[in-house]
């Protein structure tokens, strides 16, 4: 059972793995109860992520003076990003370690980790470029824009890296129509898309002339991204639960 859940949590990346075929048959025999426990796990992990974001709002105020989301926005961005990354990694390490360690050596692990870091940085830079293309100032507020890119990468790239690893083909598969192969990938798709949509919607209030502190670049966008991410975390287990009858993962 333990092995099964682990595999179901983090499906292996290689399609021709013999281990996998065995699991598929087992999972299909287990049927709905299997799915329900999976969804429960998904819900718990997501609640943990939401909890980490809430903590990132409250904990720093014990240690730092004058901490508030709006005034010391950059600090909060760093802290929130660190918290979410930590929780994601933690979940990955707690649930995952055996699945790939069987075949991979330490050096393989390290290259994999380095690759992940490079991917993360690349995603930060590409988000930064996209923001500038969207009209963010090129020279002023570079740090703000970059930290915004970092937090958006934390919400989108980090879970992808944890779940799929530095494997572009798998990413493309997950983010194309009907390419999802498990509940986890499905929830990943939903949270990522909702983070993006949240960011996109977060840009809308900027031109309004209300002169509120949260309308300053990039606060509304980062808040939008955070709300989008949280909304995705909440919605995806519910959505999967509601559609559990219709959901069939073809390659699973």
């Amino acid at each position, binding site marked *: 059972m333990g092995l099964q859940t682990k595999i179901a949590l983090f499906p292996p990346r290689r399609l021709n793995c013999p281990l996998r075929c065995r699991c598929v048959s087992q999972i299909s025999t287990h049927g709905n109860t299997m799915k329900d426990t999976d969804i429960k796990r998904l819900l718990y992990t997501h609640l943990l992520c939401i909890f980490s974001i809430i903590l990132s709002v409250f904990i720093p105020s014990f240690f730092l003076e004058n901490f508030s989301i709006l005034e010391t926005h950059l600090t909060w961005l760093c802290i929130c990003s660190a918290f979410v990354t930590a929780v994601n990694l933690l979940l990955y390490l707690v649930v995952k370690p055996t699945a790939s360690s069987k075949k991979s050596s330490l050096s393989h692990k390290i290259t994999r980790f380095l690759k992940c870091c490079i991917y993360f940085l690349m995603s930060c830079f590409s988000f930064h470029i996209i923001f500038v*293309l969207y009209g963010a100032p090129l020279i002023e507020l570079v740090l703000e824009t970059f930290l915004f890119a970092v937090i958006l990468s934390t919400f989108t790239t980090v879970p992808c890296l944890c779940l799929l690893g530095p494997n572009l083909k798998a990413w493309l598969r997950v983010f194309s129509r*009907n390419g999802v192969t498990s509940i986890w990938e499905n929830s990943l798709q939903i949270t990522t898309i909702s983070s993006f949509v949240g960011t996109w919607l977060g840009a809308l209030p900027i*031109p309004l002339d209300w002169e509120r502190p949260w309308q300053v670049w990039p606060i509304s966008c980062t808040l939008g991204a955070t709300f989008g991410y949280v909304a995705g975390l909440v919605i995806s287990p519910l959505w999967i639960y509601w559609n559990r009858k219709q959901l069939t993962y073809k390659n699973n």
Partner: protein
Amino acid sequence: MRLGSGTFAACCVAIEVLGTAVFLRGFFPAPVRSSARTEHKEPPAPEPSAGASSNWTKLPPPLFSKVVIVLIDALRDDFVFGAKGVKFMPYTTYLVEKGAAHSFVAEAKPPTVTMPRIKALMTGSLPGFVDVVRNLNSPALLEDNVIKQAKAAGKRIIFYGDETWVKLFPKHFVEYDGTTSFFVSDYTEVDNNVTRHLDKVLKRGDWDILILHYLGLDHIGHISGPYSPLIGRKLSEMDSVLMKIHTALLSKERESSLPNLLVLCGDHGMSETGSHGASSTEEVNTPLVLISTAFERRPGDTRLPKHVQQTDLAATLAIGLGLPIPKDSVGSFLFPIVEGKSMREQLRFLHLNTVQLSKLLQENVPSYAKDPGFEQFKMSEKLHGNWIKLYLEENHSEVLFNLGTKVLRQYLDAMKILSLSLSTQVAQYDLYSMVVGTVMVVEVLTLLLLSIPQALCRKAQLEVPLSSPVFSLLFYLMFLVLSAVHVIVCTSAESSCYFCSLSWLAAGAVMLLISALLCAIVSALTKVFMDGSFLSKSPAHPDSRWSELDLLILFGTLGHVVSLGASSFVEEEHQTWYFLVNTLCLALSQEIYRSYFLGDSCEPQCHFPMDQGFDSLAPALQDRTGGGVSEHDKVHEGPSPFELLRGHERWMVLASPWLILTCCRLLRSLNQTGVQWAHRPDLGHWLTSSDHKAELSILAALSLLIIFVLVQRGCSSVSKAALALGLLGVYCYRAAIGNVLFPWQQGNRDISKGIIEARFVYVFVLGILFTGTKDLLKSQVLAADRKTKTVGLWEIYSGLVLLAALLFRPHNLPVLAFSLLIQTIMTKFIWKPLKHDAAEITVMHYWFGQAFFYFQGNSNNIATVDISAGFVGLDTYVEIPAMFLTAFGTYAGPVLWASHLVHFLSSQTSSSSALSHACFCYALICSIPVSTYIIFVTSLRYHLFIWSVFSPKLLYEGMHLLITAAICVFFTAMDQTSLTKS
């Protein structure tokens, strides 16, 4: 009757234009006016008195013998009262701070454009918004005004400056010299032409009023903004002019018994970018300084300038000159100017002004008796009478003084409240005309929406139920009811109504149209329901999932439409379009990557999302199933769209969205528009500053080269040569008027108007357009192959590009070049390989067209219209060509994208009905915002920003609709040629 969807859409847009015109006529209200004719002279109100009869029944005598008004265009309040004033206008600052002067900050009401401001200053009324549109050819001012009164009183008036005055007040000046305000690049000559008369006139002294209107400062603002070093120099020049006039007036004063008055004022301010027209604080606040020896100033008495209304000047001048106050004036005179007079005289002046205001209120507000200002006025008039009685009884005691002060305070209060309630009640909307216009527009929109399924089907034809209304009872009933309503409204309305003033025949025709449209909607609705019930039985189409692009297009359109309800989003509409276009590019890149990387391995249903058209409803799917399936199969059986491309082209496909995004980002930083971020430094200002002429020249030349390279590929050899010569002519024209330099020409050359060069280009524009038209006709008459038609369309397109290149300012030429570049990239690497359907391509063209409208530096503000485009190649202001050129210059972006759309669709051989589909979609996507905006504006008509933000946008929308109508007609014509051929 069967109609092609293109023709149908064109008809719909034409009706919509009519409806919008009626709406606009009703929306832009007639300003507050006194109904009494000016010819008929009323005796001035006698002094009120209780019982005893006063001997003061005539107008009080003038306070000043000579008045000089120095109006400096775009004089902002801080240019006089701020740090700039201290630095550059020492004499004026001295007068303001220490001398015998009263200084005020006069608040101008938007639109802050010269002609309405002059009207406001001289009539004291608030001109309607329509005055902005009529700004270009100012007709004579018919309303009662100070100048007219002064002339009637036999005063001799001399005017030098902006010739708008001469047009507004023809035959009022005994001597004048008008300077034209349209050559914005000239800021020294224009003022020297005013100042050169000064010495002579000041020495002569055979005049009573002297008006000087200096334009130089405004021109500097337009060229280089309020922080230009030129501003300081101009202000010092103005200061010396003031000093000259003031000393001359002081020396003259010894000869006459009465003191003289010198007025320094501005017509409007200057925004942070140097333009004007809107309602920011910098544009609205102007200084108003009254200088006269009559004003006593205790030493050490320094006070901040008080805020007053610009309209107050008319009443002040009238009282100062002993004239009746203009009838339409909503201003209250500036009380400090009579502070030195006796109590009785002060009260007399106050009484005159309040009587005039309350009369105006009585004529314009039905419930005037309940107005607090009017009540206050009645009370103070009674008190005033008592005071006069006491006064005439020779009771010069403390009691009299106290009572007098009380009356004075009450009068001032009454005047303030009256003035305020009059100016808030600028006018009533002509609701009836507005409703008629709205009903027409909304009906047309509903009809368009209902006919989507039919219009976007493969045949692109639809049944227009025209015969059924003629025989239906509903039609006649509707017509009767509407006629009855019309008669009732028109006979009962107290206020004037434009729609009632139309002839009965025209009104009846409009009513017929409305009821016919209603019947058409009803029959279309029943048809939809019938089809719908039929459809629900049949199984749903398996392919009905919309692609992300379709969703984006749908939500983008909806979001944009909804955003028009918020004033900030209207002000910053360019942000909406840039945002949408960027998202569109990202969605396209996602689509490209998906079909590039996953195109081969994925299952059929996720292989290639079938494009359903962004708004095709279920019946459309049903209709298209037949063709859709075959197309679908074709796609799958054939090779992946990318396999046809060669190696480097594949890379280009992958890079193209990013290339387009980069272009858009560059263009975005070229012209900052809108309101909030308009003051940010941008490339356009950097390029136009005189230090960077060389860079501008290089950029302009490069852009022209790119334009040539991109445009010539589709042209015949004759037009190629014409295009090259034309573009060369454009550069020569810009060099002639001094915008750019030739490499061999160093330093400043004499600047001409460049008439010859511009006309040289016009010849080529007309030549290319003629060749294009000839090709089109040939393809129609001789049934020649499609190629002739494509070439003809491309030639028309290149003619328009050449015209745009001539009209655009040189720093905007990159906009044109990038527009062509993006069109080329999109055509080659996105639309052709991805095989979008006509509806999607149309919407994309529309979005890019809108974005380019703002890339050009336009905004939803009247001030950003580049009127200099109307003077290219013209000696003087000729109305029709100037209007046409300005309109084309402003809407060049949307027009060029639309004509590219026509060419692109007719060059694609895929579908014969593509052009009809495109025409229909274009009409629909343009009419959705217009109709919604009309409803928004109607509901927001008492919004605070209705005049400054929503009205200009309404004018822009109306103009855009007109241009859309023209485009749709062109579309339909092209469609007809293809139909007749086949």
